[in-house]
């Protein structure tokens, strides 16, 4: 060995300048130093350019402008807001709007997705074909186009407030949005809330007891029925006993639009509808793949053990399918949140439209505004991927 080393003329354990590149031990360090130098000089160049550009434009970078009054209105605000509120508050309103439409979209897209995914596997040819057509059409048309299409249909094809459709009593659908009664709670409402909490606690206690009973004696108790009737029944009972402590603020037509009640604006409707339909199609494919991935032997084994079909689905197929379904499902949720940024196209005021749109245009603080928007989205996606990692770890198969 020692002869070999001297043959290639490298002193044992010695170091030459050339071994920075030729010796694997040092080469990775050399490469990383080069990468670090390149990266730092690239960043340095950008920072340098930015500073110079800002000097030329006479902008003093900083986030002080967030305290100035925003002087623009936002039609949908979940917290107190008007045009004298500061910019940061406009940002919070926008963020809440982003989260609101994402949450609504996630719920409806999940429902649509699971339904269509199961329909797609239906033995009924018509049902499975229609699901297929729905999936292919919505997946292959850009989301932005769908949002604009639904917005166009709401604004141009729905009647004016005076001829509003009334799909249910006191619900008014017109080109100004969907107006509906707003529940106003009286003070006795706390009784109903308390009854609900008691019911949930009781249901959990009952489920635990039933589990224990089954472990000890093998007797199976009707957990689902008892739990559901507790959670639904007790608050209803409290509601009627306390004398129905709810009144409704019913929307009324005044002039050209409705006043009072709750309103879902056309922008929100179009965005929500399009997001749910679009993502629902993706979720349907995920659900289908998940169910198909469970081998038929599992179902057969379960039947041969005498487990009835509905339990087979619930106890054998679904738990295994969910392991396949949930990770891509969560990344679809992340997609909904990111795609809700298309709100700006129909004028729904989300975080991109407020801070990244009007505030940016008014103050000219492109650098600060965009950094806020980007950080917001990065934090949301970091949060969602943390949930995903936690879940993956929890359900990871314990292999031999």
């Amino acid at each position, binding site marked *: 060995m020692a002869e070999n080393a001297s043959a290639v003329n490298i002193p044992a354990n010695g170091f030459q300048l050339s071994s920075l590149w030729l010796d694997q031990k040092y080469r*990775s360090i050399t*490469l*990383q130093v080069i*990468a*670090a130098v390149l*990266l730092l000089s690239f960043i340095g160049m*950008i920072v340098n*350019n*930015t500073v*110079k*550009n*800002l000097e*030329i434009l006479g902008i003093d970078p900083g986030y002080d402008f967030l305290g100035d009054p925003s002087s623009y209105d936002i039609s949908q605000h979940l917290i107190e807001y008007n045009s004298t509120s500061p910019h940061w508050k406009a940002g919070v309103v926008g963020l809440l709007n982003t989260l609101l439409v994402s949450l609504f979209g996630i719920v409806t897209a999940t429902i649509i997705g699971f339904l269509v995914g199961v329909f797609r596997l239906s*033995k*009924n*040819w*018509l*049902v499975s074909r*229609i699901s297929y057509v729905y999936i*292919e*059409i919505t*997946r*292959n*048309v*850009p*989301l*932005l*186009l*769908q949002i*604009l*299409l639904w917005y*166009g*249909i709401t*604004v*141009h*094809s729905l009647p004016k407030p005076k001829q509003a459709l009334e799909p249910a009593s006191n619900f008014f659908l017109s080109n100004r949005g969907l107006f509906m009664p707003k529940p106003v709670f009286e003070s006795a409402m706390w009784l109903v809330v308390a009854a609900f909490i008691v019911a949930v606690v009781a249901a959990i206690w009952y489920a635990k007891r039933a589990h224990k009973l089954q472990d000890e004696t093998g007797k199976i108790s009707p957990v689902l029925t008892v739990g559901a009737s507790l959670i639904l029944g007790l608050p209803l009972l409290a509601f009627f006993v306390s004398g129905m402590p709810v009144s409704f603020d019913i929307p009324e037509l005044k002039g050209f639009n409705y006043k009072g009640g709750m309103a879902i604006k056309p922008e929100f409707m179009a965005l929500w509808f399009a997001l749910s339909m679009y993502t629902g199609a993706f979720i349907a494919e995920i659900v289908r793949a998940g169910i198909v991935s469970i081998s038929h032997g599992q179902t057969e084994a379960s039947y041969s053990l005498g487990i009835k079909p509905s339990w087979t689905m619930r106890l054998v197929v679904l738990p295994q399918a969910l392991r396949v379904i949930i990770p891509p499902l969560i990344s679809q949720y992340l997609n909904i949140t*990111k*795609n809700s*940024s*298309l709100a*700006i*196209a129909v004028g729904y005021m989300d975080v*991109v439209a407020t801070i*990244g749109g009007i505030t*940016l245009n008014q103050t000219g603080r*492109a*650098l600060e505004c*965009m950094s806020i*928007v*980007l950080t917001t*989205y*990065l934090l*949301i*996606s*970091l949060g969602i991927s943390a949930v995903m990692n936690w879940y993956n770890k929890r359900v990871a198969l314990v292999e031999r």
Partner: protein
Amino acid sequence: MVETKTHAPGAHPAMPAPLATSGVIKWAKDNLFSSPLNVAITFVVAYLLFKIIPPLLDWFIFDAVVDATSRNECEEKGDGACWAVIKVRFSQFIYGFYPENLRWRVNLAFILLIVALVPVLFDNVPHRTKALIFSALYPIIAFFLLWGGLGLEPVESAKFGGFMLTVTIGVAGIVLSLPLGILLALGRQSTMPLIHWICVIFIEAMRGVPLITLLFIASTLLNYFLPPGTNFDLLLRVIIMVTLFASAYMAEVIRGGLAAIPKGQYEAADAMGLKYWQATRLIVMPQALKISIPGIVNTFIGLYKDTTLVLIIGLLDPLGLGQSVLADSKWQALSDEIYVFIAVGFFLSCFAMSRYSLYLEKKLHTGH
């Protein structure tokens, strides 16, 4: 008297299957009326289809107006869709404001694109290796055809629009992001911590933000990052951002391909004495890329659909043009027609691509 026929044992000819167990009846019985619940579902769905489809067909075809010069004329002629707006503005939806006498260059670039794609997409083409050289050169040829130069009259990119713009951004994005994605995927697998982390942070940051914010950066911020006084084309800035965005997704697709290659392949390459880049180029990448092609096609479909977002920063893709047509007082409020037309355009191309990717998945799935 009925004539009876006798057959020797075993010589009876095969009889046709009973009517109820073959053909249409059997199919309908199995697929539409297999249980009482299914019968009910079939009838409900059929009724709903009967309610929905005829009015839609009326709107689309039977009551639609194709020849008209304004929306009012359309309304006089029929109460269906007013396709006249598409007919009048059709060439704009395809070429945007590209000068009319130079549109042959766009057509030529598109035909050459198909020629360049064939050897990439199908591996049983004659003279494939030679054809692939043309495919590799295609982006340069297309650039000169579209933007001009080399003796061709230059065209500003502000004149680009319509589906031509969509295809330009999509193809440029995918061609440029593929090599970048390969490098990022390799970097993410690297054992050098610094390289690994740079790639991870870049990929996750790009995947964590919506494309629209990156396009905003392209339109508002990118000028801050460049030396003072430089100001270049908005379309190029958009292509850069789209490329960076797509390369992060591409990197993840290729990482999946790399992960699918058995460890034995790496070890065999090492045992042959191949260096890192040799092993990557000759052993690892050909296999990894082949596995990743369906994923790459899917990324492209996503990117192609996402190009519609450029409307928000003011480029005139089909949607952007549609909105400018809607602002024209002659054609106001025809949003349904315009959006449906664009949707059909996107659907046809995306559906074809997703079919191709499915075909490829089936072909690559050589069974276990």
